[in-house]
């Protein structure tokens, strides 16, 4: 992966280029390669160019890839660690090898074009200077926290020393990427140059550095930054810790560990600081959270094989300029797809176009896009009130109101105008695709796409095939979903598909808990403590109780009896409580802002009196209901793997990522223990908790959902 050459001016150029993969990933082998090469260079010895005995004037590290520098270390290795000691050792090794760069007797320059993450950035931090290109893919970051780790190959130690405490914590605690302009601003990069000029500029810099000329002007940091790095340091830690606790509920050890390591190591001499970092890395690498998050990362990276060669989408038709249709149009535009957007009048389309404008202005404001690029992107938005243009789209996504007759009618209209091979995807959360496609001339090109709201933010698309859907349609749709930046899971055409299927018992149990007397706000608080982003009552308010009621209506004939389903959704809807959208739900709303619980909701219950229910019971009942249903889902083949089910639950409705998804979490609990727990719940609270036969069978056989855990 690494090649070394010396040019005619005696500048050493180390090129990273994985021969068989599109991305440069640091494997154990590449670390060894680096070590061999750097040790040789340090000794002025064999350099890879025979007969070259004198050391180079300086060294440039550059990638041979067009759009990435190094995207990180091979994280599969970490997931294999059994004990903290394994992690400490790996961390020390990484620190030592990257430290070889810093120890070279001549200047080193990292010339970064494209993505530079994790270990890649740590390598760059050990160089004398960092030049970055203005390539649109150029981004620097430490995503370790997202995997429950810290940058353990010297990153946690070196970053705050280079960019200051606040900027460093911001990067490491959120895992967010830093783009060129900001990288320069915080001092992470010394210069931005155009991509083709990168190597030349890096060579210039090497020559200047080796001539002893100071070319990296130490910019005086602004007063605020100096204060934050100095006397106000304790405040920074306190605020950061508070924020972390607020965002994670203390369920994620990594950000807290990062804070601890930085607080204890910053200001110490390097070897001691690095040792603290290694210990922290070791501790994190042994946590269940790290293993679960790594599982989710791989399960969600979704590069699964497609059943056919997909059609590339250059023109997309979108039907409906409501919330969903507009969101879909927005992400499609963002990915460079031309969108023909139809609705009945230009008033609706105006709202859609305004929303799209706002979205892209936000991107410009954050400097992710230049306004010029945005202008070009937006020329690809084409509103219409008739079906003209639909004859040339590769895919239509129909995002009209969830009404079977309406959708059938629209599909009939579409089939009259689109090409025979055009894929027609219907965006629905619960309508059976076979029914939507019934009566279609070509049911084989009809498929379901369940987007989640807001489409721009929610990372999941549930693709639903009916029995008639053909492989080409499925492949094209999955490919499109991935192109839109979404994780795609494929679910079978069964009531509620996968996501709403497992949500149904969870929301049903919510009403049972309310009937048992728990106050709305306490219930939501308990659920947030479990690690979900919002409680179920808030979720129902956001989704809309009418929408949830419609889904429940689809589910009731199917699994209602087994779940002892309540009709509370209907009661609430009939009471005029639709949730946030009409300002009446579990909570009160004024001017769009959520207020306190509306005490009147308790009058809609059979038992209005309130009492406390302990956290453990809430957790066990809600998750137990969900797990039990998940067991049915996999057994019925609704999803093709437990991993897909894990990812779907996490990205679809915020199942806690640190639990690794329902199936991963069940494995962690132990299936026999879960069966026992469910049986107890069934005795205490009702037959709906009766353990699912497939779960019982699996537990009895000693099987896991994820073998080799």
């Amino acid at each position: 992966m690494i090649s070394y050459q010396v040019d005619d001016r005696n500048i050493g150029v180390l090129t990273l280029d994985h021969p068989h993969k599109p991305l440069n990933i640091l494997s154990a082998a590449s670390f060894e390669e680096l070590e061999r090469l750097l040790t040789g260079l340090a000794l002025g010895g064999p350099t890879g160019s025979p007969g070259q005995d004198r050391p180079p004037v300086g060294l440039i590290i550059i990638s041979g890839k067009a759009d990435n520098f190094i995207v990180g270390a091979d994280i599969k290795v970490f997931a294999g660690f059994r004990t903290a000691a394994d992690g400490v050792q790996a961390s020390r090794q990484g620190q030592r090898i990257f430290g070889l760069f810093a120890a070279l007797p001549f200047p080193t320059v990292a010339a970064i074009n494209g993505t530079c993450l994790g270990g890649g950035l740590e390598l760059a931090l050990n160089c004398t200077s960092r030049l970055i290109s203005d390539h649109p893919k150029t981004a620097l970051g430490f995503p370790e926290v997202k995997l429950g780790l810290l940058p353990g190959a010297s990153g946690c130690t070196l970053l705050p020393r280079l960019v200051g405490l606040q900027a460093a914590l911001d990067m490491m605690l959120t895992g967010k990427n830093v783009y060129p302009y900001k990288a320069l601003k915080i001092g992470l990069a010394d210069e931005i140059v155009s991509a083709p000029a990168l190597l030349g500029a890096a060579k210039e810099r090497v020559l200047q550095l080796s001539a002893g000329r100071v070319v990296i002007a130490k910019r005086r940091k602004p007063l605020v930054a100096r204060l934050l790095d100095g006397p106000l340091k304790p405040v920074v830690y306190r605020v950061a810790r508070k924020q972390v606790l607020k965002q994670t509920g203390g369920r994620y050890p990594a950000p807290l560990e990062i804070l601890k390591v930085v607080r204890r190591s910053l200001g110490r001499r390097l070897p001691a600081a690095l040792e603290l970092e290694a210990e922290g890395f070791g501790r994190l690498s042994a946590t269940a959270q790290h293993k679960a998050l790594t599982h989710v990362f791989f399960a969600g990276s979704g590069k699964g094989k497609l059943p056919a060669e997909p059609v590339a989408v250059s023109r997309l038709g979108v039907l409906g300029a409501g919330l969903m249709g507009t969101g879909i149009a927005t992400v499609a535009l963002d990915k460079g797809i031309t969108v023909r957007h139809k609705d009945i009048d230009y008033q609706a389309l105006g709202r859609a176009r305004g929303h799209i404008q706002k979205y892209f202005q936000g991107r410009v404001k954050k400097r992710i896009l230049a306004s010029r690029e945005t202008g070009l992107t937006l020329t690809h938005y084409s509103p219409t009130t008739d079906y003209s243009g639909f004859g040339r789209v590769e895919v239509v996504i129909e995002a009209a109101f969830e009404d079977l007759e309406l959708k059938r009618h629209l599909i009939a209209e579409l089939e009259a105008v689109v090409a025979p091979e055009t894929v027609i995807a219907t965006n629905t959360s619960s309508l059976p695709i076979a029914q939507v496609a019934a009566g279609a001339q070509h049911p084989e090109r009809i498929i379901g796409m369940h987007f989640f709201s807001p489409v721009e933010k929610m990372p999941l698309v549930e693709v639903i095939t009916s029995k008639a859907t053909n492989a080409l349609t499925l492949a094209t749709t999955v490919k499109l979903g991935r192109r839109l930046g979404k994780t795609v899971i494929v679910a079978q055409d069964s009531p509620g598909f996968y996501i709403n299927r497992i949500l149904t018992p969870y929301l049903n149990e919510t009403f049972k808990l309310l009937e048992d007397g728990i106050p709305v706000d306490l219930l939501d608080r308990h659920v947030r403590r479990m690690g979900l982003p919002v409680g179920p009552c808030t979720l129902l308010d956001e989704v809309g109780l009418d929408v949830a009621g419609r889904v429940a209506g689809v589910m009731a004939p199917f699994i209602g009896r087994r779940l002892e389903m309540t009709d509370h959704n209907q009661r609430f809807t009939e009471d005029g409580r639709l949730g946030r959208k009409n300002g009446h739900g579990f909570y009160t709303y004024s001017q769009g802002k959520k207020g306190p619980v509306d005490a009147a909701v308790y009058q809609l219950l059979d038992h209005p009196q309130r009492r406390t229910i302990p956290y453990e019971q809430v957790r066990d009942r809600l998750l137990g209901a969900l797990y039990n249903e998940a067991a049915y889902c996999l057994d019925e083949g609704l999803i093709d793997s437990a991993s897909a089910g894990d990812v779907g639950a996490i990205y679809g409705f915020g199942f806690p990522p640190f639990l690794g998804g329902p199936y991963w979490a069940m494995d962690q609990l132990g299936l026999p223990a879960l069966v026992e727990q469910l049986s107890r719940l069934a005795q205490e609270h009702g037959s709906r908790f009766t353990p699912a036969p497939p779960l019982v069978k699996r537990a009895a056989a000693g099987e896991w959902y994820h073998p080799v855990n």
Partner: protein
Amino acid sequence: MERSPTRPSGRIAIVGGVRTPFAKAFTDLTHLDASDLAKVVTQELIQRLELPTDAIDEVIWGSVLPTMSNLNVGREVPIALGLTHVVGHTLGQQCASGIRAVTAAAERIMAGQAQAVIAGGSESMSNTPVTYRQRLVLALQAVQKARSLGQRLSALRRVRLGDFLPRPPAIEEPSTGLSMGQHTELMAQINGISRGEQDEYTLLSHQNAATARAEGRVNGDLVPVSLPPRHNHFFEQDNLIREETTLEQLGKLRPVFDRRHGTLTAGNSSALTDGAAVVLVMGEERARELGYQAWGYIRAYAYVAIPPKPQLLLGPAYSTPLALDRAGLQLGDLDLIEIHEAFAAQVLSVLQKLESEQFAREELGRSAAVGRVDRDKLNVNGGSLAYGHPFAATGGRLVINLLQELRRRDLQLGMLTICTSNAMGVSMVLERA
């Protein structure tokens, strides 16, 4: 893209077209420039015609007042739409620019150099380039070159305060120094066209346009445009048409070009306007190959140039008989006629000359007058007085309107004609089948 030149054997087809609603300058479309408008109409044209993008060979764009940031709209458009393989150029021939784009497209196709050309024109009178007096420009240049404060000050000494006032582009004839309005005043005087006649003609234009809109004869060809900065509202309708105007109201307007003796008012002159129009031009056979039912075909056209003085805008009186000759037709054979209305007095002057035997004899060298234009066939959906006149977009509007109206009425032959500053005129005969 390399294509071996093959000259098509058939006619030149107009496959379809669209335009933006036209807006009085500094109203709805103020914040969009000629290039923005061009992109909107071209995207819609491609979508509406469901045109395969690899079938497009060229874009030819008309533009009368280009801005420094959009010197070649013809190429900006395909780049913005992702058609990076499409060659584009921009041309100017004053108010004939839009039609010149269409005939240039036709000629590219006839020469075997292209098979499908997008021909359009757009103008944003709200975004005309503003210039400074040359004295100021020279002084600033000298300041930049100056090496000392003294030199700098002395460079600035010659500048007058008034030089700092920006100069909007004058719509005046460079060779005569007279504005279009002043020239037309002159024509009205020479040809004896009264204020009353002009106002009556103007009223008819508005009434025809209002009726056409009310009966839905215009809307289908419009592309609504989302408006900056928030883009949450679409501009959907021409905003210059005055349904309610009366002769009395028009009569109250004061003359603007010759305040004392003049007859031209803001009412009976076309307004400064923003807008864009575009059509798709193809060889007849190619269009059929791609499955299109063309709107119509170019039968013949003629450009003429005349002396700027005394009747600058009389070009159509010369180009019309020439185009008819080339088409092998008489004026009476035409089913519909579109005369661009720069000013009511200009249209009435042209009509007068076409009817005049003396004009035919002395100016055209013909024994008989070209003929009388039947008013029932003339600008039946109103003209530029009602819609406005975004210079380079007017040609496209006339083509679209003429062909669509021929179709609606199931008629065959139509002619359009445009006068231009610089003393030129163009007439084009279109046929439906």
